């Protein structure tokens, strides 16, 4: 039992790793030239298939849905889609962090607490 669940877990991890490398267009099953309507329709079709409410208890489907959701978030936003098309995943991350190198300074991107005892 333990071994099989370990294997299942491993398989899931591998699967997730594969999925996360996947291209957003491939995830939604649409071409680069597809328009807003195509993307929306594809997202809807896949949502109905993978949404956790339609697949209770299925972790795989839930993980897949999150990927699709992220892909749709990017491709349905004209700005994000353009950056993704031109600069790929890295460019997108830069954009989402607040553009270029502007906010890279530590004080701007830091959190709060300093422990006083040490």
């Amino acid at each position, binding site marked *: 039992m333990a071994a099989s669940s370990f294997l299942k877990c491993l398989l899931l991890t591998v699967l997730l790793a594969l999925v996360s490398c996947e291209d957003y267009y491939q995830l939604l099953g649409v071409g680069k030239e597809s328009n807003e309507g195509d993307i*929306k329709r594809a997202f*809807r079709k896949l*949502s*109905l298939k993978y*949404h*956790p*409410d*339609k697949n*209770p208890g299925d972790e795989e489907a*839930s993980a897949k*849905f*999150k990927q699709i*959701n*992220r892909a*749709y*978030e990017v491709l349905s936003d004209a700005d994000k889609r353009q950056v993704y098309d031109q600069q790929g995943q890295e460019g997108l991350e830069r954009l989402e*962090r607040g553009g270029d190198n502007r906010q890279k*300074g*530590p*004080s*701007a*991107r*830091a*959190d*709060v*607490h*300093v*422990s006083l005892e*040490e």
Partner: protein
Amino acid sequence: MVESTKKKAIGIDLGTTYSCVAVYQNNRVEMIPNDQGFTITPSIVSFIEGGAAVGNAAQMQLVKNPKNTIFDAKRLIGKLMSDQSIQKVKGLLPFELARDQEDRVTIKVEEKKDQPKSTYYPEQISAMILKEMKRIAGIYLGYEVTDAVITVPAYFNQKQRTATQDAGKIAGLNVLRIINEPTAASLAFELEAQSAEDRYILIFDFGGGTFDVSLLSVGDGNNQVLATNGDTHLGGLDIDTKLVEYFVVEFKKATGIDVSMEQQALNRIRTTCEKVKRILSTETETDVTIQNLSTGKDLDMKLSRAKFVDLINPILKRLLPPIEDVLKDANISKNQVQEVIMVGGSTKIPRVRELIKDFFGGKILNHSINPDEAVAAGAAIQAAILNGDQSKQIKDFFLLDVVPLSLGVAISTGGMETVIKRNTPIPFEAKKGFKTASDNQTAAEFKVYEGERPLVKDNYLLGDFEITNIKKAPKGEITFDCKFDIDANGILTVSAYDEKNPHNQNKITVNTKTLPQKKIDELIKQSQDNKELDAVTKTVLDAIISFEYFCDLLKKKFKDRRLKFTPQEKKQMVTSFQQGDKIAKVLKDYGKTVVGLQNLSRYMERYHQELRDLEAIVNPILERVHVAAGLQWRGRKECAGLLEDPKEDQELSKTQTCQHFDGDLD
């Protein structure tokens, strides 16, 4: 056939003023009526000696027992006493609010005379209402129901949602999902419409206590929420309050009497105002009369619709900005909205309709769904979806919900760094990197907030955790990867790890509970233990209330200036209701000793007998005086008749009719 073997899950609209329950079966939504035959039940709990009454029976106590009759629990749930919204309403409520050690809102009620007051959390009050809805559904379906979907206003924060879920647990329900009211309404509408066409629809939900606007993209079985906005403190109750304030001032002008501190008078004005508001939805003017409001003086005046609109104008002004906001958030112009669906009792006000119609350039608004029932109907549909209903209609139908408020982390400047933006479809996962803020920092605290304001102090703190033992380094050199993971239930888990030392990590499932788990477990147990006792208590209490109510009716009749009693009859009437009051007290005391079901049937026999004896004396008298005045005495059913005459003393609202009597006595 498969359908009949599986227990149904129900949908409950837990409203500020009324609650409603529905179930999806036989390929349609069925609204479930309560004992009185109404599909809406007042969200009111009244504590009287011997126990708590819920719904219609409790509503009857509003005027009589204002200090122990609790309404508005929905506006208190998941709140702290120091919250601004609570401070504002504190003085306006007839019952007493207090704080517990953690500043949580509690309600003080007198359960037994001359004994210290008991303390209830709003969750417990809501649980009593939910339990009543569960009971009603159980009778309708013929088996005990446990699974339910409960609705909340779209703008409820995580704390209020969790508190509502806890109320469900205390009521013995397995809460499948908490969904937004306007979203539920749209499900009800879409299932009905069955359109494959892609459209934008706007749900305008203006109810008793809250105001919500949601914009959805629908079509082909998909219901995707695009944006949602609103005001958790704007509804019919606020309209009533405006009217009450006005009449208090006018009454003082006319009589010199200030009733602003007289709770009973205020409650009588409030109940009348609710009625006046309803009348002005169809009439352009109405008389407002309350006999003997204070020290023998009547309130007697007229109110026109124009004046009414004038009075509520400050409220009407707050209806448009949330609509503009959802359109902006979804990046859609108002011309693109194909359908505007009106939900909630307050949309019956003509001026509200005009306002929205004008905003959308004269567009015809959609009133095709019952504004009182739509939300519960939608909840029932979602319950069927989550219950795996295999009917054709439900199978390819589903709701894609969103996060109602943005979620993020506090950064060193006191600012809010948003990780998941509001209106993002869920489930969803997002990551963000954070760096140390100072040299040689050894601990980092992650404080998770929800809200739209740029500074965290203006948003809600959901929870926090720490990563310690960070290797000393110049500021900015250590990076943390922070992950926000929100599931389909809207439950958020936040985790973070030190990039240089991945083993150094921490995470929380954001605990948004107002009450600690231990307390909730205790309340659940309490509620389950009392199951049989509750059934007995309910019957006894309803009997007592009905009896008292009949005595009150006699007194009211006695004072009615149109009815001419002979001196002999007067004497008999007075003796009757004095005797009635005594019997009510005996029934009350006797009621406390009722424990088992056998005992209960003896009690009910006694109660019926007492009532018949009383009727034997008063019925002939009342029959005579009514006929003499050209009126008709309809016995116990008379209370309902009282309500139909707007000139009568209107302490009762529409649903508070004496059909209650019929159920109990016939």
